[in-house]
């Protein structure tokens, strides 16, 4: 047993020194390999993080949203619809929501303006208990993290706003400062920054501005008896589509949107992005296959000669295969780790610098496209099986072929 360990030590030792002997070749190999892993891992981290982000967004969105449609377009929703919908059997609560977009001509950015749910119009008494209130820039982490920041309207206060990090960054504005907005009527409307949002998901909160209902109505000139849309919650999710059908029958000019439908919309967006990623991904996989194949197709004459010598001086076929296995494993593990770490930094710290051109459309919306670091064991395993395993196998096969030749071949035509 002891000699067995000793033997493995010798083999690994010799493997490492062999790797160093062919330094240039192996470093080149390592760089190419790490680059491919880097691309594969970046694509994978990026798409997964986006999907994760999307699911976070969706987890927070209501089961059903009802919009009013005029001439095929989203219009303001009269509050009277809410009272009618509430009467439908199975509907638990209907909440009027106030939100909208504001284009900031100075910075060329779009903001999302939102009245936090707690004070929307005349809240139903029976609705779920008020959401928790976040006061300071407190950092929350963990699986329970909410994508949508929880700020009660009552903490904002008239004349104040709470802004997303993205806006704070772009306008270089901090707590206590004022931002001058232009209302729908063209008047100036200064609002004081009460706080900035810190949220798990930049995707959701980056461009967000929270304000009180009266401020919001003044800003956009929305009358008291209108809201942007309605969030409907039902007792039994099974009944969602029945209730949606009832709502359309009741108000033919309304459009109920079920969360699953939003999911589909999101999915198509991310899949479109994902589709582009697939192209990159398959190119990288292809490159890898060619690379591994090239490796598999043969050993250099020098390597062959060495294997012959080792066999002639008493190494077994299995010793040589073990050596080649270690060689492959050392190279692929190093490349794998380097590629994965670089990809992690690339996606989560440099905001996918390399993919930036492809993401241009988004980066105007989200000045700094910062994804929440998210890597699962599953992704790493997939990557591992896509790269390390085939490579290691492809180094063993030719070594095995060379190692099974008769050792006496080393006594012949071994001219240097």
């Amino acid at each position, binding site marked *: 047993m002891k000699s067995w360990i*000793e*033997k493995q030590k*010798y083999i690994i030792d010799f493997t490492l020194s062999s790797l160093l002997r062919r330094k240039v070749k192996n470093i080149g190999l390592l760089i190419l390999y790490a680059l491919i892993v880097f691309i594969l891992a970046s694509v994978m981290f990026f798409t997964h993080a986006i999907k994760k982000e999307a699911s976070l967004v969706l987890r927070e969105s209501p089961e059903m949203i009802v919009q009013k449609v005029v001439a095929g377009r989203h219009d303001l929703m009269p509050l009277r619809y809410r009272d009618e919908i509430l009467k439908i059997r199975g509907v638990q609560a209907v909440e009027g929501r106030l939100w909208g977009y504001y284009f900031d001509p100075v910075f060329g950015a779009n903001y999302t303006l939102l009245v936090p749910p707690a004070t929307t119009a005349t809240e139903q008494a029976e609705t779920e208990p008020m959401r928790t209130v976040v006061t300071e820039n407190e950092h929350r982490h963990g699986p329970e993290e909410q994508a949508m920041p929880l700020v009660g309207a009552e903490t904002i206060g008239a004349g104040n706003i709470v802004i997303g990090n993205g806006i704070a960054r772009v306008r270089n504005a901090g707590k206590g400062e004022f931002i001058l907005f232009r209302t729908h009527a063209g008047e100036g409307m200064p609002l004081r920054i009460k706080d900035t949002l810190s949220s798990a998901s930049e995707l959701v909160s980056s461009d967000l501005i929270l304000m009180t209902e009266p401020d919001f109505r003044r800003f956009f000139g929305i009358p008291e008896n209108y809201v942007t849309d309605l969030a409907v919650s039902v007792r039994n999710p099974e009944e969602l589509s029945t209730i949606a059908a009832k709502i359309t029958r009741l108000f033919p000019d309304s459009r109920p949107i079920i969360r699953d439908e939003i999911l589909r919309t999101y999915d198509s967006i991310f899949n479109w992005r994902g589709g582009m990623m697939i192209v990159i991904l398959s190119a990288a996989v292809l490159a890898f296959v060619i690379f591994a194949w090239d490796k598999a197709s043969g050993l250099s004459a020098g390597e062959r000669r*060495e294997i012959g*010598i080792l066999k002639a001086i008493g190494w*077994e076929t299995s*010793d040589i295969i073990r050596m080649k296995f270690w060689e492959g494993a050392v190279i692929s593990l190093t490349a794998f780790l380097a590629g994965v770490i670089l990809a992690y930094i690339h996606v989560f710290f440099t905001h996918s610098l390399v993919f930036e051109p492809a993401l241009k459309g988004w980066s105007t919306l989200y000045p700094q496209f910062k994804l929440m670091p998210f890597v699962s064991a599953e992704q790493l395993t997939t990557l591992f099986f896509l790269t390390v395993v085939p490579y290691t196998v492809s180094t063993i096969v030719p070594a095995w072929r060379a190692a099974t030749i008769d050792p*006496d071949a*080393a006594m012949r035509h071994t001219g240097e």
Partner: protein
Amino acid sequence: MIELFDVRKVFNTGKPSEYSALNGISLNISSNKVTVLTGPSGSGKTTLLSIIGCMSRPTAGRVKLSGREITSLPERFLTDIRRKTFGFIFQQHNLIKGITALENVMLPAYPLGERHGPLKERAMHLLDRLDLSRKAHSRIEWLSGGEAQRVGIVRALINDPSVIIADEPTSNLDTKLSYRFLEIVETFKKDGKTVLITSHDPLVYQASVVDEVVRLRDGRLEGEAP
């Protein structure tokens, strides 16, 4: 004692290039003696040597090593016998470039899993015996031809084999170095080792240290009827 019974070797059986390199060789090689195989080029010396050294198998016939039949053993056992019984000195010295003389010398011992300390000590001792201790940490490609050959000899000795096999050991050496080699063979004999050399160099097969000369021609022992 190595015994050969009617050993035959056919290469590329069934192909147009089929060639019978050994045509029935029966031979006894005594222990603690120096035996030289000689004969014209292509007569089958190297082929016979590699069969005796368990590097390849005969097509027909049997080989016995100290009374034990080895021709039918599976590869694993053959490898084991090879590295414990035989030490090989090659014509092209077959050293691995890029590593030191010392590492080259130790390589055949790696699969045996011996502790590093004693192994290195033995290697240094053997290198010293052939005046190579100063070159132990030099890379192979920096050595002269004679030094490289002596490193090859030390490597053959590292596992303390009872039989030393050398294929054309002097073909790359000048006269002085060839004599030096014969001196080394002398010490092998003193240590009680069996030495088997192929050579068509008269300097070798006429040397006083040689106990027996076996002449091959066309894959047969000379003098025997075809």
